[in-house]
């Protein structure tokens, strides 16, 4: 990056090559210096021992305030967006449940139809004939007490 920046610096920039040339002239057996060696290997000693951080008693408060504002903003944002998200998810769920309900109702109707087909009077009559069953004659029916809603006025004989 430093090399890339260098051509952009213009004429006013210092010439570190002069120092390297001088160094090479002193001893010809020395290796040729790296490009911008003085830049890369230059160590500037900075003494910060005398630097004293200025006391800022409101910094902590500002930090907490910022955290609070961001948290509240985040919560508000979530609060605003959450119902919509829940609504979306619930919409999917409701739609799925509706489909399931329709399928179950269709199945229920189909089963009810099947049950009715199997218990239709004609079907029952055929099965009864196969098993030698028939309607009882009136004298074979014994009424245990007068049934609710019965219309006959009087009862005669036995069994009525």
């Amino acid at each position, binding site marked *: 990056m430093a090399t890339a920046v260098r051509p952009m610096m*213009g004429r006013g920039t210092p010439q570190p090559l002069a120092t390297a040339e001088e160094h090479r002239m002193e001893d010809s057996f020395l290796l040729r210096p790296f490009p911008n060696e003085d830049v890369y290997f230059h160590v500037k000693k900075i003494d910060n021992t005398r630097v004293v951080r200025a006391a800022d008693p409101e910094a902590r408060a500002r930090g907490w305030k910022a955290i609070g504002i961001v948290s509240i903003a985040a919560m508000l944002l979530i609060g605003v967006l959450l119902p919509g998200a829940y609504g979306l998810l619930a919409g999917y769920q409701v*739609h799925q449940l509706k489909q399931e309900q329709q399928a179950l109702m269709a199945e229920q109707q189909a089963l009810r139809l099947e049950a009715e087909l199997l218990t239709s009077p004609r079907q029952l*009559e055929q099965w009864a004939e196969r098993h030698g069953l028939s309607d009882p004659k009136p004298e074979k029916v014994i009424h245990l007490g007068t049934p609710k809603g019965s*219309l006959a*006025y009087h009862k005669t004989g*036995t069994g009525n």
Partner: protein
Amino acid sequence: MNPKNITQNRVRWIARVSLLGFALIFGRLIQLQILDHADLLQQARTQQVKTVEVQAPRGTIFDRNGRPLAMSVPVDTVIVNPQRIPDRGVAAEILAKILGLDQDELTRRVETAFKAGRGYLVVKKHVNPEEANRLKHLNLEWVEFRPGARRYYPNGSLAAHVVGSVNHEQEGDAGLEQGLNDELQGHTGVVRMTTDVRRRGFNTEIDSAMMSGQDVRLTIDRRIQHVAERSLAKAVIDHNCKTGSLVVMNPHTGELLAVANYPTFDPNLPVQGPDDMAGRRNLAVVAPFEPGSVFKVFTIAAALETTNLTPDTVINCGRGVINLFGRIIHDHDPYSALSMADVLAKSSNIGAIQVGLRVGEQRLHEYVKRFGFGDQTGLPLPAESSGRVFRLSRWTKSSIGSVAMGHEVLSTTVQLAQGAAVVANGGLLVRPRITVAGPAAGAIRNVALVEDKGQPVRAIKPETAITMRQLMEGVVLRGTGRAARLDGYSSAGKTGSAQIYDEETKHYTHKYNASFMGFAPVANPALVVVVTLNGASKYGGAVAAPVFREVAGAALRILDVPRDLPDQLTPAAEPEQPANDVAIAELGRPMLTEPIGPKPAPPAPDPNAPVLIGPRVPDFSGKTMRAVLEESVALGLKVRFSGKGVARAQDPAAGTVIAAGEPVRVQFAR
């Protein structure tokens, strides 16, 4: 250049480029959000929002016990988009295998639709749930399922004429399906469903709410209906009749417990043509006929109310001939004189005419109307006939004689049941009804209340009704309706045999509308049964009364009505009676010079039968204890009595030759 200037220059350029970029974005936003907003919104809705029609489930029709007679089952219609099918041959193979279709035929259809550029092809309508599930599990994106419903009649032809049927658009085209179509059908709803990219719905907005069809609960009892249809069909076939109809009704509430017709049809099958459509008419409601002798009940009821005639009043029957305003009328049997009770029991035409003449035209017309004839009953069944009762101004001089014995009037089977119910319930005209309020046991929705019959109207006095019951019981005990006697129950009724008019030859034929109109038990009737057989060669007492016996007996047992006759003595099997009750039809036609109706040949005696010597047991049925005692003493019979009232049963049977000293047991009951 000063480095500071260079930096500022660069910042300016960056700012300009950024501004330009934002300007472009902003411009695009204006284009999208304002200029093209409507078009884009429409496109988005087309992609995301699906308009779905929600079919209203058609209401279920229940019988009175909550058993469904007609129900709709959701079914799917399978549709494909031929343009999206990757391999049409394979697709046809899959679909044909699952849906049970002919593969070659389906391949041809798919190819034809593809070449025609169609994106919509109905593969099969109304697929059953099993087929639909198998196809759905394949997740084929080019297959679409359109929801619908199919009407099923689980009991087949049971009560088919009452329930009716629906056409291919699921709209009623016969019976109650047609008469109550608005209540049953409901209203289709429209919803807008928002879908995601996978076409999964997540939001639904209702444009118009769906309203389910209302359930209808009928008064029909499917067990009684089944017995009625079975007995009617057997009678029609056995006696080579053309058609038949039968009505079972509760006389107190007017509830129709069974309405049967023959021939019948299976409403599960589509209409095959005009003839098939005609066969779906409810004859008991739409087909009026001349009722014949059953109408004598109403003539005599009018006489009891408006004249000083009583059941014991002797009516001159003129030895079977009467000259009515220049027309000579013959009776079926040459009676010289009969009590009014016997006029009904023996169904004397001359006697009925004499009674009608005593009542008078105006009062007879009034009473015929009081019994509900000539007016629709108000059942919610399509094309109900009102029958026909001519205005008095249209009556000829001899009309009173015709009406008195059931001619020159037209009545439906339901109207006859309504009239008989007046006698059975103590004199009130109760309109018949086919629907009942209140939810059925199997109903999940509210039941439609579709009939409001109002309050019953008094037609005749209660004492007249009770007298008529006794007279009608006499018909069964000693008259033309002996075949209508029930095991374990008292019964009353009237037979009828009206000649059928041939429109082509313009003459009455020797085919009859054989009918029986009765009720049981006599003391407090639980039901009225009317049987009509069209085109019978025999009389009503011979062909229609046995149907009454079978249906009424079964219905009383099903309804759990306690018996009013003793258990021990089964009524003796009666020898077949000629039961000739033919009402002379051609009263208003050229005069008849000879009795109508074939006389049944007397049975040839069996030369090999053993000859018994001893007293022959008379018929005690319907007689009082005193009369039985007198008759038995005169014959030297030893009789054992039990019970009170009139003789209901006897053992041995009437006509049996018994050994001297052998007792005869006679059971009396009220």
